[in-house]
């Protein structure tokens, strides 16, 4: 398997009054056309890892790495032109909440066309946009096409977001908690759509979530992050045999349907893990 994405010793730091604070501290992994899950609690640096890959670390933050390569292209000091040829065309990102990630004063259609226009002409872009809305199982794509984001439910909005990010058929999709803002019932539908599209198009996926169970059922490999560090990389099927006490702890905290666990397990933390 040739690596689509190579990340070696990725570090993201933000300046604070007491000097720079590293929120991602040496994350390394390789990704082919497969699904990689990144799990971790809030503030573990999983989202910042995803954004750093797209060169979208919010200023004044800085991302550095020993290697950061996408399909042989060095992303570390990529020019504006390089980023333009990658973002939206070969790599894209689905964000958490469509309430904030869609432009409130533009119709869904215009936002989709804006993405589609990257790789197709004006006339074709509209057809592709409507077709893409159909592909994310929106029943009345023309209506949604003309709607503004606030006129859609969360689930519909997130489907529109997925449509927008997949419309150019990128090689790598980063999904940053794509279902956390949705109702549980809608979550499964949206995930199913995402799953099908990713499989059909054979793209690489980085699935960022705090939901260990979701990630392990959805991904091939799981990367567990704690306090900006990668504490463990494990095959999703072998999560139960995870070696790191943090992963084991997380795994044990998952509620089970059968049987009762008393007392409820809590997560034990060790200051050493963050070192």
């Amino acid at each position, binding site marked *: 398997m040739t690596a689509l994405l190579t990340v070696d010793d990725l570090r993201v730091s933000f300046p604070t009054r007491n000097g720079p604070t590293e929120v991602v501290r040496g994350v390394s992994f390789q990704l082919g056309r497969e699904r990689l899950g990144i799990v971790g609690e809030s503030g573990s640096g999983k989202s910042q890892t995803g*954004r750093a890959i*797209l060169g*979208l670390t919010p200023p004044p933050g800085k991302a550095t790495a020993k290697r950061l390569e996408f399909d042989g292209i060095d992303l570390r000091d990529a020019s*504006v032109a390089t*980023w*333009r*040829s*990658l*973002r*939206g*065309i070969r790599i*894209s*990102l689905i*964000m958490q*909440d469509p309430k*904030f*990630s*869609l*432009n*409130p*004063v*533009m119709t869904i259609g215009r936002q989709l066309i*804006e*993405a589609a226009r*990257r790789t197709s002409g004006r006339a074709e872009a509209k057809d592709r946009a409507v077709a893409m809305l159909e592909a994310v199982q929106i029943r*009345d*794509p*023309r*209506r949604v096409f*003309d709607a*503004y984001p*606030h*006129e859609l439910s969360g689930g519909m909005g997130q489907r529109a*977001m997925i449509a*927008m*990010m997949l419309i150019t058929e990128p090689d790598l999709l980063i999904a940053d908690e794509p279902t956390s803002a949705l109702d549980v019932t809608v979550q499964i539908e949206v995930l199913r759509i995402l799953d099908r599209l990713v499989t059909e198009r054979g793209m690489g996926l980085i699935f960022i979530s705090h939901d260990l169970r979701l990630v392990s059922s959805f991904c091939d490999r799981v990367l567990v992050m704690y306090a900006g560090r990668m504490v463990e990389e494990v095959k999703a099927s072998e999560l139960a045999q995870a070696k790191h006490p943090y992963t084991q702890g997380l795994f044990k905290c998952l509620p089970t349907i059968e049987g009762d666990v008393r007392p409820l397990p809590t997560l034990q933390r060790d200051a050493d893990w963050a070192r």
Partner: protein
Amino acid sequence: MTGLPLRSRWRDSAISSISWKIISLLVTVAVTFLGLLFITFMISRLIPVDPVLAAVGDRASKSTYDKMYLEMGLDKPLWQQFLLYVQSILSGNLGNSFLSKRPVVEDLRRAFPATLELATVSIIIGTVLGIPLGILSAVKSGKLVDQVVRVVGLIGYSVPIFWLGLVGLLVFYARLGWVEGPGRIDISYEYSVSPSTGLLLLDSAMQGQWDAFRNVFSHIILPASLLGYYSLAYISRMTRSFMLTELGQEYITTARVKGVPEWRIIWVHALRNAAVPLVTVVALSYASLLEGSVLTETVFSWPGLGQYLTNSLQVADMNAVLGGTLLIGAIFVCLNLLSDLLYNLLDPRVRRRVALR
């Protein structure tokens, strides 16, 4: 098949929601205006100026005084007086000015276009320069350009405008001779332009009097630049802060992920959102300019509303003062209405909210 009819129904409801909104706004305007009339009426009754004495003069005989007292309806109960007042105003009668001996309406028709013209040129200068400067400042936030724009804005904010006006006249009129001095137009041109709108730039252009147009322009550009600078300071500051808020939003990240070029992110994505609150800012600046800036009008001997009101106040010419107050109130109401309608056009979320009500 279900898509198309639904779509047209959506369009219809958007239109009807707008017309509904216009009706509700008009009702609001009527009520506001009535309130405004009530306030000006109460002012006229509460101030310690005897309206009869002011009308007949202090040398009038007792019988003349009494006759006038009855004529003005001052013997009637207060609510009847108010109705009479509303009636006379609705028929376009604001009474006579004691100072100019002319109907107040006529005076206002003379003074207001001068202010309107000055205010309009000023707000155009302030908006056309202020918004791009504010955007630049937000995009280069923290950099040198940003600091310069902010300092320039701060100066516009804090330097008294009469001082700037005097210095401007000294430098650009007296020393450099780039612009014309005080007044709206040179006397030599004054009677060649026949007043139709009262806006001299418009009148002279419509009559093809380009020499007069140049002269008027040369007169207006200095005071308009100063007032424009003043509103630029406010507009650029607000633009900067609205743009910084919008540029920090998630949908901007989405646009970046899509590979949208930076200029488009700024001018299309962020500005379209920042434009919504900006409408109010520009409308308020414009309204405050339309009140007539007394100081600027005095420095540039501009025969506008501000000067008219100040002169009238000094001699307690109450009809003139109340007429002017009413006009300013009406301007505020109209501009509010206008910015509400613009809000409706710019923000789809407002449109929906009305439809759902």
